[in-house]
């Protein structure tokens, strides 16, 4: 009974190279990579999905002993989506990267100049299996949602505008997902250098005939420009849904509450009350 199973020294268990990420307030990200077995040639960013488009290749430069640096400047466009990060060696061999430290303090309460006609957001974070992922948003123009308030049977949202101004007759349109064009509109008003609107809940829950209804919110600035999807992306939180959570109100046969989608866009959900 003296069997004690020996296991090998697990001193350096992790084989994947790690990238310490530092974000700047303009939307740039610096990747400091350690643990690469051989000198890497480039950091490759590859978009997930059926139509990924071309890879983005970032050159690696030695920054110190055993440290390779790649920079994603704010000026390089990164299409909206989830990008996997790989380390490319010569002859196309690639290895996944793991995130090390993620110094994203410059992204907290980010405020691009109100004149910015293009808002670029890149947040590095660990994916489901701990791999390094960069979430990117690229919006022009952009309507950033801020504080949300409740009262009198509806929700009031305040926000800021980038790259567009509120024209006369501006509205916010709630579009029922899969609802065959069913919409509700409320006026959007100027609020400082941003916008505000109050959306009554009753029309959103009226005639509820499904387990859930999801209403996506769009801002029509009223000057003939395309509708702008409302979203909250100007901070360091890549996945808002479980963190920016709001109370629900019972309206008719449903419970209504605003929520952030997987892409951090603002929508309103109506959940049928069971029983």
């Amino acid at each position, binding site marked *: 009974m003296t069997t004690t199973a020996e296991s090998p020294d697990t001193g350096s268990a992790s084989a994947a190279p790690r990238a310490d990420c530092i974000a700047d307030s303009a939307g740039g990200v610096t990747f400091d990579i350690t643990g690469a077995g051989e000198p890497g040639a480039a950091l490759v960013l590859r978009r997930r999905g059926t139509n990924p488009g071309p890879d983005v290749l970032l050159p690696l430069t030695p920054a110190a002993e055993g440290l390779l640096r790649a920079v994603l400047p704010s000026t390089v466009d990164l299409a909206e989506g989830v990008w996997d990060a790989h380390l490319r060696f010569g002859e196309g061999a690639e290895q996944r990267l793991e995130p090390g430290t993620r110094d994203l*303090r410059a992204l907290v309460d980010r405020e691009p100049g109100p004149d910015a006609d293009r808002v670029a957001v890149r947040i590095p974070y660990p994916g489901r299996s701990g791999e390094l992922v960069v979430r990117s948003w690229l919006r022009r123009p952009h309507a950033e949602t801020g504080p949300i308030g409740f009262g009198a049977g509806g929700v009031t949202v305040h926000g800021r505008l980038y790259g567009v101004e509120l024209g006369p007759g501006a509205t916010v349109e709630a579009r029922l997902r899969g609802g065959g064009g069913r919409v509700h509109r409320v006026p959007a008003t100027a609020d400082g250098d941003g916008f505000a609107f109050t959306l009554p809940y009753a029309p959103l829950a009226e005639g509820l005939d499904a387990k859930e209804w999801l209403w996506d919110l769009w801002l029509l600035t009223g000057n003939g420009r395309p509708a702008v999807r409302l979203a909250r992306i100007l901070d360091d939180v890549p996945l808002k849904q479980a963190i920016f959570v709001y109370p629900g109100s019972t309206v008719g046969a449903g419970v209504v509450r605003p929520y952030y989608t997987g892409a951090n866009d603002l929508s309103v959900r109506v959940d049928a009350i069971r029983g």
Partner: protein
Amino acid sequence: MHISFLLHNAYSLGGTIRSTFNLAGELARRHDVEIVSVFRHHDEPTLPAPEGVRLRHLVDLRKSSPGYEGDHPQHHRPAKVFPRGDGRHSQYSRLTDARIGDHLRTVEADVVVGTRPGLNVHIARETRPGVVRVGQEHLTLPGHSYRLRSEIAHSYPLLDAITTVTRADAAAYRELRLADVRIDAVPNGVPSPRVEPASGDGKLVVAAGRLTPVKRYDLLVKAFAQVVAVRPDWKLRIYGSGDAFGNERETLRNLIDDLGLYNHVFLMGLAGDLDSEWVKGSLAAVTSSHESFGMTIVEAMRCGLPVVSTDCPQGPREIIDDGVDGRLVETGNADAVAAALLELIQDDGLRHRMAKAALESSERFDPARIAERHEAIFDELHAQGGGSRSAGALRGSLHRARSTALDGAYALRHKAASVLRKGQTA
């Protein structure tokens, strides 16, 4: 020296594992160090294993492993050596009794270090003569059940030394009057962060820990309602999730909604890299009703945050110098928490001065310095001839004879006492 740590489970998550890994890693720079994990349920440790430290296990609980022993008949019989008072008793068995006993009777080490009461009892009773026996207390003696305290008082006299994480707990152990057992307080080590310290300008208060009732995050949320009333530009982030001892997430969620704080207070979930989260804030808050040590206080200070903490037993007051590098306020008092937070929010100069002081004073928790203190204790005991407790075979056998006699007496006394104490919590 050859130093052998005995750990419940090196493959899991937790404060004891983290601080043992830190200490073992530091000691391994100069010594031959191994960590023996009673259980192994994963192939790889969840926390990064320390460099240069051998890691092995005594009982394999990996279902996928050919050596899986979860179905061993002896593993279904309750442990006799591992004390019943230790909260982990149900996970231990005749199999662990035998494996731990065999390990300790044959261990090739100069110093054996236990990391929880149940394992310290094994070490006290079974370590071969000539080996220094050290029992670490990572929680607190008064926090243990009456039964476990009895078992500690009974077995710990056979240890050479006990280390606690606070001076208050060392004092509690001294009151047990364990003859000739050295008792030292050595706090946990916390490495300096791999990111730059906080600038102190972010309008953000950060808290982190398990979402369990003892952490009293409800108190923090209520206090923060008072902060928001004065300074609506400040926000609070709480990092962490529930565990086996409870999950307050829903309760806190409802409280946030009831107080209308959904634009100001955020339950962030688990953070993989907490240091990167601390440095986004300018203040940290701890509102626990009890902290054995207060690891997060030290972590926040090392990131350059002054901490507002309740003056709860036992750790905080041994870490924070009130009014110098942080604030200590009355336990359970939301008004006091709010007042202290607002004091530091309203006065940027004061906050920055305390942040600087916190950064400097927390250097005393550097793992290298903490390891030196453990090393000095091990060194002295080793120099005294390898375990004064066990050097005399006579003494050992005397204790054993006395123990056997006392075992019966203790069992009786315990029975009587538990009848008397029924309805009370120890």
